[in-house]
């Protein structure tokens, strides 16, 4: 059987837990590290481990911003909408990036190249407005520079 969803990796995580309900969120956090999101198969295995219903795991995971129930694009584009970024023009930057990627906030492109998201506050308020592409932070963003972050698109 193939291990598409990292069953082996998940089992390596679960050995450190006792199987108590209160471990659900830490387990989900670690499990998300395997694929970058939480495939159903992974949630099913976690449910079995904790002796709870699969729907229960989904119910909890769907509540928190951190957990992702859909695959992500290879490039995670995150626009900060913190107070400082907001005052300095983040909303327009989100609109512009959305138009050039042809994505709405929260969407992933069909080819899994890009995911566009906004986040409440990255914490780099002094560099506002801020756009993050994967782990790289691009500060003092302008409408003009925002679009040049994605050179592939202009080809």
């Amino acid at each position: 059987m193939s291990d598409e969803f990292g069953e082996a990796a998940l089992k390596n995580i679960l050995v450190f837990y006792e199987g108590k309900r209160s471990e659900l969120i830490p387990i989900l956090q670690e499990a998300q590290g395997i694929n970058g999101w939480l495939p159903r198969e992974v949630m099913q295995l976690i449910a079995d481990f904790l002796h709870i219903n699969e729907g229960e795991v989904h119910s909890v995971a769907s509540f928190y911003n951190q957990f992702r129930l859909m695959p992500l694009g290879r490039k995670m584009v995150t626009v900060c909408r913190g107070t400082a970024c907001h005052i300095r023009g983040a909303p327009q930057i989100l609109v512009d990036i959305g138009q050039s990627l042809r994505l709405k906030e929260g969407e992933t492109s069909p080819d899994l190249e890009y995911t566009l998201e906004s986040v409440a506050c990255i914490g780099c308020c002094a560099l506002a407005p801020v756009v993050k592409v994967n782990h790289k932070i691009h500060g003092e963003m302008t409408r003009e520079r925002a679009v040049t972050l994605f050179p592939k698109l202009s080809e």
Partner: protein
Amino acid sequence: MSAKCNALVCLGTGCQSGGAEEVLSSLKEEIDRLSLGETVQVKQTGCHGFCQRGPLVVIEPEGIFYSKVSLDDVSEIAKSLLPGEPPVDRLFYREPATDTPLPHYMEIPFYSKQQRTILRNCGHIDPEEIEEYLAAGGYQTIKKVLLGMSREEVIDEIKRSGLRGLGGAGFPTGRKWEVCYKAQGPKKYVICNGDEGDPGAFQDRSVMEGTPHSVLEGMMIAAYAIGAQQGYIYVRAEYPLAVKRLRIAISQAKQKGFLGKDILGSGFDFKIALFQGAGAFVCGEETALIASVEGFRGMPRLRPPFPAESGMEGKPTIIDNVKTLASIPVIIDQGAESFARVGTEKSKGTVVFALTGKVENNGLIEVPMGMTLREIIFDIGGGIPDGKTFKAVQTGGPSGGCLPESALDMPVDFDSLKAAGSMMGSGGLVVMDEDTCMVDLARYFLDFTQRESCGQCTPCRLGTKQLFDILNDITKGQGRPEDIDLLLEISEAVSTHSLCALGKTAPNPVITTIRYFRDEYEAHINEKRCPTGVCGMLET
């Protein structure tokens, strides 16, 4: 430069994003190269406060303050530490009005007007070294408590200090502890609430990053007082540096015997575990936080019963904010009376703010309760940049309100802020200038709360969405004449009927912006015009 000194490089999150880590390692290399290792110690510290001027380097004991330090400045700073060399005056902070250089940080108004109690170690010690905390007098109060005070005496001391919860609501800490102390049961919990979710607030993060051992020591004292054996620190996963430093602090405290079994031979057992929040603003509410630690959706539960009587797993639990807990060792150390001498009649001690927005000096500050907003914004904050005028200040994050010019001489304490329609909240202070549209700002905060509403109770789930939709229409030039009254009517229903504090306080930004800036709403609705030009109106 003097014979022996410390070169402190601030590695708070703000300074790190400006390249402080590179400055630190390069300064270490330079000091080695100049064979100054014997006399100069290069150390990392937590947040020194003046984030906007980062990266910061401070030379102790003189207190020489270098701001906006880049890699290119490092060799010059290192050379200045050679015997007889003068400091690098081009890196001094300069008084904006007169351009006078101010070499020592205590001469800079940003610092000189502050009173650093909770933050006393922040920016001065290496948060990753327990030895430094010990050398600064750390863990003396837990010794004092375990070896010489009864549980009742500790609670009495906290009660007499007048300390109120610094997470926002301002409930008297000693009274909460007493309820939990009296609650029956062999198993109790202490939880440190580090789920600081307000956009524009970073004071809890800075305390956890800058002086993690103070938080642990406060938790230990709380645990001893109420009779808990297990503690949790609930910290946002979005704060990786705080997580890392708390982890280091916990393991060092264990090694030194401050955590574990039979602590200091007193027979008191206590453990602390970290719990990383998974991203939900509502988890700052204590019953939602408990649900989250138990592995459930972070939805607030009905109170009563209050957690002090029935909290985590139904056991008596106290949940205190990071800054509240960090204040505990200070109170035990100084004594309740000395602590209570600072502040106002009903709000004792100091308060930590993250000062941000359209203000000259952004950063982390601590002031005595009762200082006026004007002193904070114009003396410490240095006023409004670019010659613009002040319009409003927002306290308490999305749960707080926007206060106008006329409120500037109000003393900052729990009760005054509440009376003016805002709240202390967890301590964000965002300054707005003439370019900020207050309708857009209200829309912004309601966008936040309607996203973060847990969705459980009807008034909050649907009411915040209605408020947002109406504000959205107004900012697009589609407001209707009856909308202002409608916003107030919905706000009242949401704040009266919601189940938890998130819903009850969510309308505050709407209510206060209408109360103080009604003319801006009217311009948007009646004239289809945004006075500041922020809102792109459909009609022109």
